[in-house]
Structures are given as C-alpha cells and as structure tokens.
C-alpha cells in the first residue's frame, strides 16, 4: 500500500547563514514505521518543526495526504492529524496526569471552547482519557501531579497526550531520550502498541530502538538526506557507518 500521508518537496530552512535543513524530499506512507537518524545537529528536530509548522520553511512544500499545508498554522495541522512528542517533556507539570490528557482530548473534540458547562460534566472526555491512561498503564498514577512522576512515566504521558489527539501522522522526537534503560521498555512497548494505520516517524539515537521498531530508516546528515533503506541496508551501508554508526559504535555491534 503506497498511500502517502505526509510528503515534503525540496523542504529547506536556513537560520541566517546556517542552513539547517536543505532540499529534503521525503515521503511517509500510512501505517509507516519510519526512523529518522543522524548525528547531533543534523537538523532532525528542525525538520520535525517544519513538518508541524512550528517554523515556516524558507523554501519547499509540505503536503498532508496530497494537500499543501506549507502555510497552515501549527494548531490547524494538529486538527488535520499531525501530532508530535517533544525531545524534552512539555507537560502541564502543575496538573494531574488525567487532566493533562483531558485537556488534549477536549481540544481534539472541540469541547475546549465551551464556557458554561463544567468540565466535570463531560464524562465522555474523562472516560476516554482514563481509557488512554489504562492502555498506557498510567491509571494508577492518574491522580498524581506530573512533577511527582519519574521521568520515564512522564514520557508516557507525553505519548498518551499525543495519542489522545487521534493523529494520522505521529512524529516522535527521541521518545526514549533521558529515560533510564530500566524504564525504556515501557515506552517501546507503548510505541509498538500504537494503532497500525497511524504513520509514525521516530527520531532516535538508540539503535536498539530503531532496529526493533522501524521498517524503514532515513539518515540525515548536516541538513540533507544522506541515505534511506531498511534497517539492514542502512546498517550495511559503509558510508552510513562512517558518518554515523561509527560514532554510535554499540549500535553497530548489535547488528
């Protein structure tokens, strides 16, 4: 099935003299499990920011299911089905885990605009949020404030929130980053349990994750596409080893 969800054409972004992202043509099919790897400062996160509309591109286009969304605002893109997680948690630290998810869900359902019915009366939203928490094994801490959770579980909340938006395209920026390896498996399992139809693009350094999760891998180096292929191909690619895996040695040893 080559049903393209997300596509970029010659997408570029420069900051003054520095070219962060350079002429990237990229396709993400429905149900894809795609990993984006590359050395630090390769422009991976900038690329995500261009896809989600946090940054406007200096050149090129972004298409969602064939529709040009280059000029569309971030909030709009979310409504159209592009959701993301952040490299560093961006959560409502002062609020309970449940509320964190509820806020996301009521934004998706459009309930967030209503002023004169109490949030507590929208049991449908609360139920859905609880369901989500259960599937992410967070139900037991639903009442805790984010600030009271260990980092690993905070990452899960981050995921739960994005899933609560029912995205078509899901962009995961190093979901396991900063999670102690003891907890990281929780994240990975959660990712594996994601609904098949969602197109997932994951930025990841940890090769274990990449090989375990991705069907295709794209390597990005200094703002440009460097190589693309199956995990095996990429691992076999000498050039990639040289510029990238060479540095993240242990990943190669796993192969």
């Amino acid at each position, binding site marked *: 099935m080559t049903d393209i969800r997300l596509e970029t054409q010659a997408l570029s972004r420069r900051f003054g003299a520095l070219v962060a992202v350079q002429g990237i043509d990229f396709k993400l099919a429905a149900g894809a499990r795609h990993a984006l790897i590359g050395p630090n400062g390769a422009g991976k996160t900038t690329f995500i920011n261009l896809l989600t509309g946090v940054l406007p591109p200096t050149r090129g286009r972004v298409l969602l299911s064939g529709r040009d969304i280059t000029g569309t605002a971030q*909030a709009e893109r979310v409504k159209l089905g592009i959701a993301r997680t952040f490299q560093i948690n961006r*959560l*409502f630290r002062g609020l309970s885990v449940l509320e964190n998810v509820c806020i996301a869900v*009521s934004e998706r359902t459009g309930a967030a605009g209503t002023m004169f019915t109490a949030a*507590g009366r929208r049991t449908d939203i609360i139920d*859905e949020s*609880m*369901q989500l928490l259960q599937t992410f094994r967070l139900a037991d801490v639903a009442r805790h404030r984010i600030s009271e959770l260990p980092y690993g579980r905070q990452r899960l909340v981050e995921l739960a929130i994005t899933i*609560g938006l029912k995205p078509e395209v899901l962009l995961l920026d190093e979901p396991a980053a900063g999670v102690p390896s003891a907890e990281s498996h929780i994240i990975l399992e959660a990712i594996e349990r994601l*609904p098949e139809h969602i197109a997932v693009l994951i930025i990841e350094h940890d090769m274990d994750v990449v090989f375990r999760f991705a069907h295709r891998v794209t390597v990005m180096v200094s703002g440009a596409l460097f190589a693309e292929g199956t995990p095996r191909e990429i691992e076999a690619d000498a050039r990639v080893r040289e510029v990238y895996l060479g540095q993240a040695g242990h990943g190669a040893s796993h192969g």
Partner: protein
Amino acid sequence: MSAAASPTGAASAVSAGQNPAARALIRRHRLRWWEALPWIAGIAFYFAFPDYLGFGCDLLVTILFALSLDLALGYAGIITLGHAAFFGAGAYTVGMLATYNIWTEPISSLLLAAVAAGVIGLLSGLVLLRTTGLTLLMLTLSTMALLYEAANMGAAYTGGFDGLPSLPIGPVFGVFEFNPLYSNTQYLFALAVLFVCFVFVRTLVYSPFGQSLTGIRENVLRMHAIGSPVRRRLIVCYTISAALAGVAGALSAQTTAFVNLAVLGLDRSATVFIVLILGGYGRLYGAFIGAVVYLALEHFLAQIYPAAWQLGLGLLLVLIALFARNGILGLGDALARRYRARRPT
C-alpha cells in the same frame, strides 16, 4: 484499533468512575459547604457593622476587581500591571453618563460599563497578547498610562484630578435610593453584583475553556502542540476579565458617587495586583482572602502609625513571596499537603 480507544459507554464510565482521579475531576466543580461562608460573612457584616458599610463597599469592589484580574493573571497567566485601565474605563462610563444626565439607572449602567471596558480589553488584547513576560507587563502598563494622560487632557469632560462631583445615581429597581450618609443600599447592591460576577467566573474557570486557560498558563508550547487556538483563547479571556474590571470600576463610581483620575492610576493596578497575589492567584478565593487581609491590615496599621502601614505591608509581602509561594491560600495548601503526608505514618 487498540490504544486510542474511543469511549465505550457504560463499561468505561464505570471504570472511570471507579478511579479517584476521575472522581475528583468529575466532582471538582461541585459546590462545597464552605463556599457559602464568604456570602454568609458578607450578609453578617451588613448587620454586624452598619457603620462600616462604606468600607464594606470598598472591600467588595476590591474583591471584584481582584477577581477579574485573577481570571487573566491567575488562570491564563497574563501578567499585567495595567488592569486599572479597565477599572477606570468602567468608572468613567458610569461617571460621565451620570454627570451629563444621559443615563443613571445603576444596573444597565453596569452593563454599559462592562461593554465599554470589554471593548478596550478586546482591542488592546488583539494587539498586546502577542507578547509575554516583561514586554507584556510594560505594554499593559503603557496602555493604562496612555488612557490616564488622555483622561487628564480631557479634564473638561472627565473632571481630571478633581473628578466628577456628586454623581447622580438612580435608585436600584427604581425604588432603593443610594443614601450618601448610610451605604446600606450601596452595600447590598455591591454584594449582589459581586455574587453574580463570581458565579459567572466560577462557572468559567471550571469549564473546559477554563481548563484550557490553565493549560496555557502551565505550558503554552504544549497547548500549541495539541492544536489549541492559544491566542484566541487569551484574547477572549482578557476581554472578559476587562469587562469584569469595568464592572468593578463602575461599582466603585456608583457606591462613592465620585470618579477622578486615580481610577486609572498605577497605584490602583499595583494594589489589586498585590491583593490578588497576597491571597493566592488562580484559585477564585484568593481575591477574597487577599482583599480582606490587605484592607484590614491597611485599616489597623495605618491607625497605629502611618509609616507602620507601609512597613508592615512590605514585610508581609516579602515574607509571603519568600515562604508562602502563591499567597496565603498557597500557604494553606502547603500546610494541608504536609499534614496529609504525615498522616499515614
């Protein structure tokens, strides 16, 4: 589809209902017994201190003004030192309408004041709310200063520093006159207005809209990332807050039958700001606690020795800021939490 399960009716409702977090959320907006206390106190005050009703009106007006600020500053995290702009707009709306005998019916005047202040809030909000932090602080401050200067230039109409004297305020419901010497009618009127406004604000902050405002305060970037129209929400919130501030201003003009430039002054903005943070922002009742404590302190310390008032207030503010993050109610929470923490052992 496994993870993003949509609500599956009864089964999940039960599952949610069982969870304490869900229960807490479902019940949060429900009235608690102690929420009746402020109003009981308000009515008790009327009978207990018939000679202090002028002061009582001042208190009620301050509470309402602080409440309006709480919506913008406490819930949406809009840091403003210019809220008196809207207080003044409301006060002058009532003042000018009355002085030139255009309109003196108190209730409709309040609504007109709310509209006037709301419009100013909307217009300034459209422009200013793109910024944050100190920039926003300065912009709100400058906007207020702008209005102040304008009102001073138009002293021929606004009365300037000397103000608009002896405003003729019509009787409430065409029956209850405002007696300048005994503020009974004024007080009950103000209490009623405050109650209505409070119910409005309370409904608002417990609604999904209010929830999303809290979200904006807690983490704007996340709100953007979940597709929330942040700026629109802020503007709506700011406009409502402005309108309420306008009502507070109008109420002060009616209860004192007087308006002068001071209603637009930094003095007033700073005071209400202090009152709110003193009581605790983002929690509805902070406005009440803050206003009572502030005015009580002012009343008693100022009688002991004028400078003592400023010294005492200063020390209190510093202590609150250092040890009781988020005001007196914040301190209460902290103590409560500590107590709960101890209990199991």
